[in-house]
Each structure stands twice: as structure tokens, then as C-alpha cells.
């Protein structure tokens, strides 16, 4: 590595390509690591497309019923804890920043920075889950779990809804739990992937010649982040809000 620039020169790259460590990474059906990397990226993009369809149908259902049952959905949405939701948004966005930096550093062969960035990504992901757990506990305390802890009377008396609107509130809450739960599952899997990358990086598995697993994990992480960006307004921000 030349001191002036942190980018590998072509000769250094060629040497790296030939090293046993790197050749070992090459799967036999691929011609070279570049082709393998392109295939891995394309595969992840396509997988994310299917995830869009998966979450998309939930968004469609939520959108359809939100249009039909405006009042019930808005009143229920206000009950959700948008402060924690908002904080979690910031947490995920910052974690995505660190994920991007991780990819940046692996391309520069800066192992220490790579480890730090991966670690922070995972840590922020765990923070997201912890805040989510707290939020779920608060929802439990506030009787927002249809089919388990839910008080129809509260919605009729305090919120002024009619009896036939109570199932609509339950419907909204069901969407809330499914969508955030599914998203949380994806975050958990993402954290597992990031931690796996962390361990592999610590063992020196990655180099500027071979870092596609990190790249692909980053793609997945950004997707998880993006889904949250859509979840937040569709669930938490229906109807108007005032500061509590």
C-alpha cells in the first residue's frame, strides 16, 4: 500500500488476486472473483425485490383498510409510541451510515476501521431491537395487543369510537404487530449477518479483492432500513400528532 493513497495499485491488486487466500474464495463455477461478486450482488438485489413484494402486499392491505376505515386507523395510530419509533429511525439510519463506511473501509483494506464500523452497525441494530422491545412492553402495558391484551371499552369510551369500529382498531393493530414483527425479524437476521461479517473480518477473511459478502450484507441492511422508513409514516404517523 503506497502511503500517499490508500487505494490499491493494479500491481498490488494482481498480487492479491493470486494469493492463496483469495483463490480459495473463488467458487468453481465462476471465472474470476469479479464475476462472482457481480453474481452475488445481482442475487441480493433480486432477493430484495422479492422482499419488496412480500412487504408490499402487507402495505397494500394496510393501505386499502386505512382508506376504508380512516377514523379508526388514525385514532389507533396516535396511540403508537412515535417517540420510540422516531428514535429507532435515527438509530437505523446511523447504522446504515456505518454499514456504508464498513464497505468503504474494506475496499481500502483498513481492517481496524472495518471492524469498528461493522461493530457499530451491529450495536445500533441491537439498540433498535432493545428500543423495540421497550416499545412492545409499553404497548403491552397500554392494552394494544388484539387477541391478548386489548380493551374494547377503552376505545368506545375514551376515544369515542363506535362499537363496530373496534374491530377496525384491532385490524390496524394487527397490521402493526405483523409488520413491525416481520421487520424486527429481518433486523435480527441482519444483525446476525453483520456479526458474521465481523467475525470473518476479524479473522482476516476480507480484502479489497474479495469483500462481496460485506457488500451483499450491506445491501440487505440498507433494505431493512428502507422498509422501516416506509413503516414509520404508514403506521405511526397516520392522523395528526401533538406533543404528548
Amino acid at each position, binding site marked *: 500500500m503506497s502511503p500517499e493513497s490508500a487505494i490499491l495499485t493494479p500491481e498490488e491488486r494482481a498480487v492479491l488476486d493470486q494469493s492463496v487466500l483469495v483463490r480459495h474464495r473463488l*467458487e*468453481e463455477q465462476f471465472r474470476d472473483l469479479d464475476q462472482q461478486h457481480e453474481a452475488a450482488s445481482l442475487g441480493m438485489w433480486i*432477493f430484495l425485490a422479492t422482499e419488496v413484494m*412480500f412487504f408490499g402486499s402487507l402495505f397494500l392491505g394496510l393501505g386499502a383498510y386505512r382508506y376504508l376505515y380512516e377514523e379508526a386507523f388514525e385514532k389507533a395510530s396516535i396511540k403508537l409510541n412515535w417517540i420510540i419509533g422516531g428514535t429507532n429511525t435515527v438509530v437505523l439510519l446511523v447504522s446504515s451510515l456505518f454499514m456504508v463506511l464498513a464497505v468503504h473501509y474494506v475496499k481500502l483494506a483498513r481492517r481496524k476501521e472495518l471492524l469498528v464500523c461493522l461493530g457499530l452497525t451491529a450495536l445500533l441494530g441491537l439498540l433498535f431491537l432493545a428500543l423495540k422491545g421497550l416499545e412492545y412492553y409499553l404497548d403491552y402495558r397500554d392494552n394494544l395487543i388484539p387477541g391478548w391484551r386489548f380493551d374494547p371499552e377503552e376505545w368506545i369510551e375514551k376515544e369515542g369510537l363506535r362499537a*363496530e369500529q373496534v374491530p377496525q382498531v384491532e*385490524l390496524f393493530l*394487527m397490521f402493526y404487530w*405483523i409488520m413491525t414483527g416481520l421487520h424486527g425479524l429481518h433486523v435480527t437476521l441482519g444483525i446476525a449477518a453483520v456479526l458474521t461479517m465481523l467475525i470473518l473480518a476479524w479473522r482476516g477473511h476480507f480484502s479489497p479483492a474479495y469483500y462481496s459478502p460485506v457488500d451483499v450484507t450491506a445491501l440487505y441492511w440498507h433494505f431493512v432500513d428502507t422498509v422501516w422508513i416506509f413503516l414509520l409514516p404508514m403506521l405511526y404517523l397516520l392522523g395528526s400528532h401533538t406533543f404528548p
Partner: protein
Amino acid sequence: MSTATLEPSSLPLPLEEPKETYLNASRGVMSWLLTKDHKRIALLYLITVTVMFFIGGVAITIVRLNLMTPRGGLVEPDTYNKLFTAHGVIMVFFFLVPVVPTVLGNFCLPLMIGAKDLAFPRINLASWYLFVLGAAWTLFAVLAGGVDTGWTFYTPYSSKSSHYNVIPTMIGVVISGFSSIFTGLNFIVTTHKLRAPGLYWWRLPLFVWTIYATSFIFLLAVPVLAMALILVILERWLHIGVFDPAYGGDPLLFQHLFWFYSHPAVYIMILPGMGIISEVIPCFARKPLFGYTAVALSSFGIATLSFIVWAHHMFVAGISIYAAMIFSILSYMVAVPSAIKVFNWTATLYKGCISFEAPMLFSLGFVALFTAGGLTGLFLASLGMDMHVHDTYFVIAHFHFIMVGGMVMGYMAGLHYWWPKISGRMYSDWWSKMAALIIFVGFFLTFLPQFLLGYAGMPRRYHRYPEEYHVWNVMSSAGASILAVGYALPLFYFLYSLKYGPRAEPNPWHATGLEWQTSSPPPKDNFAETPVVVRGPYEYEAEKAQNEP
């Protein structure tokens, strides 16, 4: 070499088995269960889907036996309902949707593009395990208690009323859905990234085009089905009304979500079959495919349009009249690319040099039956006609013409075409032609009367029926027994060929295509060295020119 006689049996030398093939490259059960070789995985799938096919066939055999008399009575009504549901669920999700992509697609795709394997071999193996898990789960649900909602799982019956194993069945289907998603993903990345040098998109064989288009449908449609079924599971389990009107839900929402997947699903079934026909007909007519570009693009036309026609299953479900109109027009549009293919296949025969081995017989049967089925689809796409025949035996006849007369015959054509490549053996010429004929005759006898039944008003899913429908039901059941014989035959002669069939040469049909440039069966890495492609597909012309005196 003269092109006049191409019967493999007329080849002069007995062949020896190639030294190292994918079959003997490693031995032992674990080498199969932990394989990364796409060819072995294709065989694993072959065994699994064949088992599912016969189980689904047994279910419908009992159904058709029950329908031999107007009063029914062979089985209890609930049992009958569980049987036709089992038939539908097994055949759709565990045979028709996976079979050609996972068996023939897995085996042939890398060979056809000159690659060593798929892009993600381990994901390929994982797909198979997911498929087996889903199949086992669903089979258990179907056999231990059964499920009686019909494979369409309409709410509120499935979410509220049915007393049977709805949730386990749906879980099994969702799991197998993930298998499909990963397979589709694999195929797309492979087609994009692993083509041999010189193999431009416009030189790809049609089978690759159709597998590619099918993979897109897998990716975009299957997740929606998974979500629709998961929502029904939650509704059934937690009693929260997504689809239940008593809770403010809408049963029609389920139908929209379900058919958004299930209509493209039927194109998942037929597109690969069309791809096979596009391979076989040029080979056995010794002619390039007529209108290659149009046929290739029509695969994409079908895949794209298939996503926007779903509500033609709902014309009398209570949708608005304007929605009905739009979906009717679009349903007509999706018929156009299919029509183009049929005309192009027919035109390929013109001035050809046609021989009638089993693959060709099955292909001709496909074209005839698919055309007939497709034409009746035009009846169903029209609002005025569907209004009458919706949910009657007319619809059953229509989709069986396409799926059984079309897709299964296409699968048979492909299996017979590539069997020498897969196994290294040739099967009996006479028995295979006999099977093709028996299947064709049995098929007509089974399903043609159902058109009459349908227009005359016999509804679907009835375990007993008024007297006047008796004759046609008997005829249909009789035909089914012939069909059963026809389907059993290949099982015997294929298995027989494995041990006693003559060894196949690398290119017994003298076809073009990269898969024929390697030994039969291929070695583990497919090709000794990466092929370089210099011509387009179906260059039977060039071969002829070479052989002119």
C-alpha cells in the same frame, strides 16, 4: 453423414460409458444429499415431484371413481372435499409449478449456457430441502386429517368455517414457496452472469428464455401468495378479521391477493413447457425455429401481462363492472403472445424433414391440446360467457387442457428429449410412442366431456350431481383410467432403460445446443473446457449445408 435417417438405433458402434460422469463422480448417499451439483439436485427433484405427482393422481382417482354415479357415496362428502383439495394443492404447488424449472431447468440451464453450475449451488440444494420440507409438511396435513377448502382457500370458509388442517397445509405451501423464490433467483443470476463467451442474449435457446421469464414470475408473485396465506393463518389462529366481514374485513381482498399469485402461477407452469416445445420441434423438423425473436419476446410478453389479468377469476365475485371490463380486455391481450407461439411452431414444420420419435409426438400433442385449451380460454375471458360457465366443469376442462394436455405433455416431451443426456441411456422407442398415444387418447376422453358438462351447468367440486350429467361423468372417469395407464408407462420404461437400455451417444438426436456437445451423461463439471459460441441456436441449416455433397 446423411440427415435422412437419424434413428439412434442405427448408429454403428455400441458405446462405452464415459469414464467419469456426474453420476459416478462420487458415491454414497451423503454425496447425493449434500451435493452441490445442479444435475444431481435435478434428479433429487425428479424423484420428489414424481412421488407428489402420483399421490395427487391417487387422490383424483378416488374422486373420479366417486363421480361414476350421480349419488356418489364412494366416500363421505367431507372426504371427497379433502380429496379434491389434496389433488389441487399437491398438483399445483408440488408438481406443476416446480417440475420443469427444478428438474429440466436445473439440469439443462447451466449446460445450455456453457456454465459449470448454477450461480449459487448451495442455495440450489437449500431450495430442494425447503421443497421437501414443504411437501412433507403439506402431505402430513393432507393425510392426517385432511383439508377441505379447495386449493383456492377462499375466505371466509378457510379462515372461519372449515374444521380441518388449513393452517398446516398453508404453512407447507409457504415453505415450498420459498423454495421457488430461491430457484428463480438462482436461474436469473446464472443466465445473466454465467453465459459462455459468444453466447449473446439473441443466441440463447428458447428454453433458457422461458426459464428466465418464469423465474421473474417466481420472484414477483410467490411472495404475495406467501403473505396472503400467512394472513389467513393469522386470521384463523388469532381471530382477527383481515378477510372476515364480521370483523370489518373483506373476503374479496383474499381473492385479489390469492389470484395475484395464482394467475401468474399458471404461466409459471406453461412457459417452461413452451420452451421445451421450442427446442424439440426445430430438432425433429431439422429446421430453425420460425420467428425466433417473436417467440423469445412473447415469453416476456406472457410473463408481464400475466400479472395484470388476475381478476378474470372474479368476474362474478362482486367486483365492479369497470374492473371486470379492464380485466377482460387484458386477459385477451395475454392470449396474443401464446397465439404467436402456436403459429410459429406450426410454421416451423413447414418444409421441414419431420420424424416422429416420442419427444416430437409429445410436442405435437402439446401444440394441439394447448391450442384447444387456449381457445377455450378465450371463451372464459369474455364477460358474457364466463358469467355462465364460471366455477363449472368448463373451467376445469379448460385448465386441464392447458396444464395436463399442455404442460404435462410438454414435460414428457422434455423428459423424453433429455433423458439420454440425463441418464446416458436410450429408452424403448416403441413403448414411448405408445405412451404418447395412450396419453393423448386418454386425455381427450377424460376432458372433452367436461366441456359439455360445464356448459350444461354442472358446478365444480360436487360430490354428487343430478342424473342428466351421468353419461359424461362416466366417460370422463373412463378416460381417466386410460390416462393413468399412459402415465404409468414411462415410469416402467424409463426405469428399465437405466439398467438395460442401450447407451446413448453425446448427441442422439443430432440437435444443436451446448448441452449436446458434452457426453451423455455429462461429467461433473459439464464441459471439458468452456465452450465458445459462434452461432445462433437451431442452426440446422448450417448442419445441412455442411452435409451437402
